[in-house]
C-alpha cells in the first residue's frame, strides 16, 4: 500500500471519529490528557549548570571526582555588613558567631567557613598556638584587634572572608548533598533573614543561584503563560470575532501544554535522567508549544469559517476543511517535531529533554487539532449569519493588498528580501558566545546586584579547580604548586588562590619562630612530614580536607576570579594548560570549575547550534521532498526559514545578543515553527495544481493561505510574552521570536511567493 493511500485511510478514519463519535473522541482526549498530565507532580525544577554537561566530559568527570574527594565546591556566599562601617566591632563579630551557630543546626548544611570557624596558627613566645580565630561570641577590644592583626598578616585569608573596604563579612556555606539545592538555599536564607536583621545581605555562589532559580522559573513560567495567553486570545478574538472558536483553540493549547509538562514529569519519574529536569532554558517551552498548538487550531478554524461562508453547511464545511488541512497539519507537525528532535543529538543534556518533550507536546497538539477540534466544531451550533463567519477580517483585506503588490513585482520583492537578509547576516561576524550566569539577570535585580558585589568587593565567585595526583608531601611538587599559583595570580581578574602549599609555608614560618624568611616550602620531605604531624596533633587535620586527600596523594588548587568574558576564559585556560604541560611532568592534572565549564559550554553550544540547524534543515527538506514528491519543494520549503535563521543570528550580532545555552535553541524553534507557513503555502499550491487550476495559481494560493499564515504569525506574537521574563536570555528569545515570526511569515508570503511566481514555469512543466 502506498503511503498516499495509507494517509487517505487515516484521514478518513480521523474525520469519521470526529464527526460520528464526537463525544467519545472528546472524552478520550480529555482522559488521556489528564492521565499524562498527572506526571506533572513528578516534575523537578533544577538548573544546575554542571548537570547540563555530558557525563563523559572531562571537566564534569573531574568536577565530580573533586566533589567526592574534597567535598562539595558548590557554596552559598553570604556577605553581610553595612556600607562604610568596619565589621571589626563587637556586634558584627558576635552576629557572625550566632549565624554559624544557627546554620550548624540545619540538616542541609555540611560545612561553614567564616571568621568564627577558621583556625589561626601563631607563634607566641615560642609557643605554637593553633586555635580558633574567633574563640568566643563576645569579644573585647584586644581580641578584635588581634583578629585584625592576624588577618592583615594573612592577606589570603582576609581576602576570602572580609570585603575590600572591611565593611562586609563573608560566610561560605556548603550543602549536604542529600537534599536539593533549593531546600538548602531556602534553609540558609531563612536563617540569615532571622539573624542578619540589621544588615545589608548579599547572597551569591552557584548553590545560591542554582537553588534560587527553581523558584524564579516557577514564577516566570506562570507569569509568561498568563501573558502569552492574554496576547494570543486578544489577537484571536479580534480576528475571529467568535468566543467559541477562541475557546476551542485555547483548549487545544491548554491540553497540549498539560500533555507536554506531564510527559516530562513521567519521563523523569521513569528514567531519573537529568535530561528531563526542568531547567532555565525550558522556561521558553510552554510559550513555544502554546504558539505551535495555536497554529494548528488557527488553520482549522479559519479554513472552516471560510468554507462555511460558502457552503453554509457545517458538516460539509468541516469535511472539506479537514480534507484540505490534514496533510499540511500532519506535515507541519512532523517537520516541527523533526526540527526539535534534532535537539536529542545535542551534547547538552537539558536540550535533549527539551527536544523530546516538546515533540511529544506537538504530537498531542496534532492529534487534538486533527481529531478533537473537529469533534468540538461539529458539536457546536454555529450561527452562519454571525459577523465573524459572514464578513472578512482585517487580515484578509491586508492579504489581498499584499498579494497584489508581491505578484505584480516579484523580482523586486525577491531582491529586496534577499538584500535585507544579506545586510543582517553581516552581523554574524559580531556574534558572541557567552554563558556567564551573571549576564542572565537584569542589572539591578537582587541576584545580579549580589553577583556584582561579590566581584567588586570580595573574591568573585567564578572558580578554577586544579586537581593534582602526586605526592603532596614532596617538596618539589609543593614548590611547583606554589609557582603555578603565582602564575595564575598574574591574571589581574584572579583575586585569590589557595592550596596546601600555602598551609605548608605558613606552618614553616610559624615553626621557625614566625620569621618571614621561612615562609617557604622546606627542602626536606621530613620537615614537611613533621609539619603535618604537628598540625594533626595541634590543629584539626580536617582543615586540610579541602586541600589534600587523606592519603596526601592528591591535592586541589582553588582560584577565584571576577567575571571573565568568554574570550578571557579561553585565553586564560589556554595559558594555564600550556604552563601545566611544560612544568608538571609525570603528574596527572585535571582542570575544572566554573571557568572551565563555561569554556566547555561555549564549545558545546556552538557545536549544538550548528548541528541542530543542519540536521533540522536536512530533515525538513527530506520530509517536504518526500510528501510533495519533488526535491524542489523541499528546497522551497526551507527557503523562508533559512532566511529567517540567517536574519536571526545576524541580528543577534548587530544587537549584541549573546549566544548561550538558552538562546541556542532559537534556530530549532525558528525552523520548527517557521516551516509551518511554507508547508501550508506549498500544500495549497499543490492542491490547486492537482485540481488543474492553472490561472493565477500563486495569487490564489496567496489568498487562500495568506490569511491563516498572517493570523497564525500574529497570534504567535504570544512569543512576545517572553519579553516579560525575569531572565535576560529568555527576553531575547521573545524579541527574536517575534521578529522570526514576522520574517518567516513574510518570508513565505514575499520571498517564497515571488520566487514561485518567477519560476512557476519550471515548477509546472516539470
Amino acid at each position, binding site marked *: 500500500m502506498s503511503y498516499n493511500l495509507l494517509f487517505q485511510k487515516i484521514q478518513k478514519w480521523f474525520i469519521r471519529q470526529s464527526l460520528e463519535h464526537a463525544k467519545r473522541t472528546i472524552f478520550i482526549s480529555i482522559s488521556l490528557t489528564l492521565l499524562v498530565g498527572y506526571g506533572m507532580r513528578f516534575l523537578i525544577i533544577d538548573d544546575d549548570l554542571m548537570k547540563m554537561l555530558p557525563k563523559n566530559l572531562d571537566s564534569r568527570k573531574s568536577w565530580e571526582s573533586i566533589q567526592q574527594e574534597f567535598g562539595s565546591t558548590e557554596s552559598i556566599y553570604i556577605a553581610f555588613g553595612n556600607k562604610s562601617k568596619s565589621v571589626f566591632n563587637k556586634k558584627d563579630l558576635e552576629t557572625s558567631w550566632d549565624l554559624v551557630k544557627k546554620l550548624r543546626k540545619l540538616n542541609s548544611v555540611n560545612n561553614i567557613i567564616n571568621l568564627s570557624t577558621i583556625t589561626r596558627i601563631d607563634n607566641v613566645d615560642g609557643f*605554637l*598556638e593553633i586555635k*580558633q580565630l574567633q574563640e568566643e561570641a563576645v569579644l573585647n577590644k584586644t581580641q578584635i584587634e588581634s583578629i585584625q592583626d592576624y588577618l592583615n598578616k594573612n592577606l589570603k585569608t582576609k581576602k576570602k572572608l572580609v570585603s575590600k573596604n572591611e565593611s562586609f563579612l563573608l560566610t561560605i556555606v556548603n550543602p549536604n548533598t542529600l537534599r536539593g539545592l533549593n531546600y538548602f538555599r531556602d534553609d540558609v536564607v531563612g536563617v540569615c533573614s532571622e539573624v542578619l536583621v540589621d544588615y545589608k545581605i548579599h547572597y551569591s555562589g552557584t548553590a545560591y543561584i542554582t537553588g534560587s532559580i527553581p523558584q524564579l522559573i516557577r514564577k516566570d513560567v506562570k507569569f509568561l503563560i498568563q501573558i502569552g495567553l492574554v496576547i494570543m486570545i486578544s489577537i484571536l478574538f479580534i480576528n475571529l470575532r467568535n468566543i467559541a472558536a477562541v475557546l476551542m483553540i485555547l483548549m487545544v493549547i491548554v491540553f497540549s501544554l498539560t500533555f507536554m509538562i506531564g510527559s516530562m514529569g513521567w519521563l523523569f519519574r521513569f528514567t531519573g535522567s537529568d535530561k528531563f529536569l526542568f531547567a532555565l532554558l525550558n522556561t521558553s517551552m510552554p510559550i513555544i508549544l502554546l504558539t505551535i498548538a495555536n497554529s494548528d487550531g488557527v488553520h482549522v478554524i479559519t479554513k472552516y469559517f471560510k468554507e462555511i461562508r460558502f457552503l453554509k453547511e457545517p458538516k460539509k464545511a468541516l469535511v472539506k476543511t479537514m480534507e484540505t488541512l490534514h496533510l499540511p497539519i500532519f506535515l507541519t507537525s512532523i517537520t516541527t517535531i523533526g526540527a526539535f528532535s534534532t535537539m536529542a543529538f545535542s551534547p547538552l543534556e537539558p536540550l535533549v529533554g527539551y527536544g523530546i518533550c516538546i515533540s511529544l507536546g506537538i504530537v498531542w497538539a496534532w492529534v487534538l487539532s486533527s481529531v478533537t477540534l473537529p469533534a468540538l466544531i461539529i458539536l457546536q451550533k454555529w450561527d452562519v449569519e454571525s459577523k465573524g463567519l459572514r464578513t472578512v477580517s482585517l487580515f484578509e483585506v491586508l492579504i489581498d493588498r499584499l498579494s497584489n503588490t508581491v505578484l505584480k513585482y516579484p523580482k523586486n520583492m525577491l531582491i529586496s528580501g534577499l538584500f535585507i537578509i544579506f545586510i543582517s547576516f553581516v552581523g554574524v561576524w559580531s556574534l558572541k558566545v557567552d554563558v556567564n550566569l551573571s549576564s542572565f539577570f537584569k542589572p539591578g535585580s537582587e541576584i545580579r546586584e549580589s553577583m556584582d558585589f561579590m566581584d567588586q568587593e570580595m573574591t568573585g565567585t567564578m572558580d578554577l579547580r586544579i586537581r593534582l595526583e602526586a605526592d603532596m608531601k614532596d617538596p618539589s611538587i609543593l614548590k611547583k604548586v606554589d609557582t603555578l599559583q603565582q602564575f595564575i595570580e598574574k591574571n589581574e581578574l584572579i583575586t585569590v588562590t589557595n592550596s596546601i602549599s600555602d598551609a605548608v609555608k605558613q606552618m614553616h614560618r610559624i*615553626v*621557625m619562630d614566625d620569621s618571614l624568611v621561612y615562609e617557604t616550602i622546606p627542602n626536606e620531605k621530613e620537615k614537611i612530614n*613533621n609539619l603535618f*604531624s*604537628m598540625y594533626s*596533633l595541634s590543629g584539626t*587535620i580536617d582543615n586540610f580536607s579541602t586541600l589534600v586527600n587523606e592519603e596526601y596523594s592528591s591535592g586541589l588548587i582553588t582560584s577565584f576570579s571576577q567575571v571573565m568574558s568568554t574570550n578571557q576564559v579561553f585565553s586564560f585556560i589556554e595559558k594555564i594548560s600550556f604552563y601545566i604541560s611544560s612544568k608538571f611532568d609525570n603528574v596527572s592534572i585535571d582542570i575544572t570549575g566554573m571557568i572551565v565549564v563555561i569554556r566547555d559550554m561555549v564549545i558545546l553550544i556552538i557545536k549544538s547550534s550548528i548541528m541542530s540547524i543542519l540536521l533540522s534543515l536536512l530533515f525538513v527538506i527530506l520530509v517536504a521532498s518526500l510528501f510533495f514528491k519533488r526535491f524542489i519543494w523541499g528546497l522551497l520549503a526551507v527557503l523562508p526559514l533559512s532566511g529567517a535563521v540567517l536574519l536571526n543570528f545576524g541580528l543577534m550580532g548587530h544587537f549584541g545578543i549573546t549566544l548561550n545555552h538558552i538562546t541556542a535553541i532559537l534556530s530549532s524553534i525558528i525552523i520548527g515553527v517557521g516551516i509551518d507557513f511554507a508547508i501550508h503555502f506549498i500544500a495549497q499550491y499543490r492542491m490547486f495544481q492537482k485540481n488543474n487550476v492553472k490561472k493565477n495559481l500563486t495569487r490564489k494560493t496567496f489568498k487562500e493561505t495568506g490569511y491563516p499564515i498572517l493570523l497564525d504569525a500574529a497570534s504567535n506574537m504570544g512569543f512576545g510574552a517572553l519579553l516579560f521574563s525575569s531572565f535576560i536570555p529568555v527576553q531575547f528569545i521573545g524579541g527574536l521570536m517575534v521578529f522570526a515570526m514576522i520574517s518567516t511569515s513574510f518570508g513565505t508570503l514575499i520571498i517564497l511567493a515571488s520566487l514561485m511566481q518567477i519560476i512557476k514555469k519550471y515548477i509546472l512543466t516539470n
Partner: protein
Amino acid sequence: MVFLKTISFIFVSSFIVAQNSHEIALNIYTKQFPDDLTNTMNMKLVNSKNKIRNYTMKSRSIDKNRKQIIWFLEPKSDRGISFLKIEHKNRDDEMKMWLPAFKKIRRISSRKKGDSFMGSDLSYEDLSTRDMEDYLFNLKEDQNLNGKIYYTLESIPKKKLNSFYNSHVSLVDKITFNIIKEYSYDLNGKLLKEKEYTYKKIKMFDTLEYIKVFNVQNKHSTQIKFTNIEVNKNISEDSFSEQNLKRIPAN
C-alpha cells in the same frame, strides 16, 4: 490516701534508681588503675572509602594517663616525632612536641576537646580522663548484647564541662564494671560515635586492649590495639620531661 501512697512510691523508687545509677558510676570511676602504664598502640584509621592509614606509637603514662608521653614509630615518615601531655586541673594542659627534622621542641596549644587526635575518631575529650563530678547519671533499662545482660548507664555532661557531647550511653559489665560499649551523642542529640572496648587483666587491673570507634556521621572508623602492655614499672615523674622526648626508649 491512695494518692499519697502513689506519690511516696514514685519518690522512693526514683530515689532507688538514682542511687543505683550513682552506685554504678561510682564503681566505674573508682576502679583501680595502675600507677603507671606502658604500651604500644597500633592505630588503624579507616575512612568511608575503606582507605586505611596505620600508626604505631609507644606510650608511657602515669596518674591515670594525666601525664603521658607518646613516641611515633610508624609510619616511617613520622618516626621520631614525640608528644608530651600533662593535664592540669585548674589551668590549661601542657603539650610539647619534638620535631626531629627541625630538631626543635615546640610547645603546642591545648586542644579544643572536640578536635580529633591525629585525624582519628577519638577526640581529645575521648582521650582525657573523665571525672565523676562532671556528669549526671541515669540508669536505663538493661540491654542484652551477644546473650549477656549489661547495665545501661546514661552520662550527661554538666554545663561547666563545656563538653562536645550531649550524652553518652554506656553498656556496663555487671561484674567488672568495665564499659564494653558506648554510644556518644552530639550536641544536637544525634548519634555521633559507637565505641567498643575490650580489656585484658594484667596484675589485677583491667587494662584496655582494644578500642574501636565508629563515627556514624562520617562513616570513618578507628581501631586501636594495645600490645606490650606493662603496668606498675615504677616510672618516675621525671621521665615526663622535654629531654625524654628526643629519644625513643628501647623498651
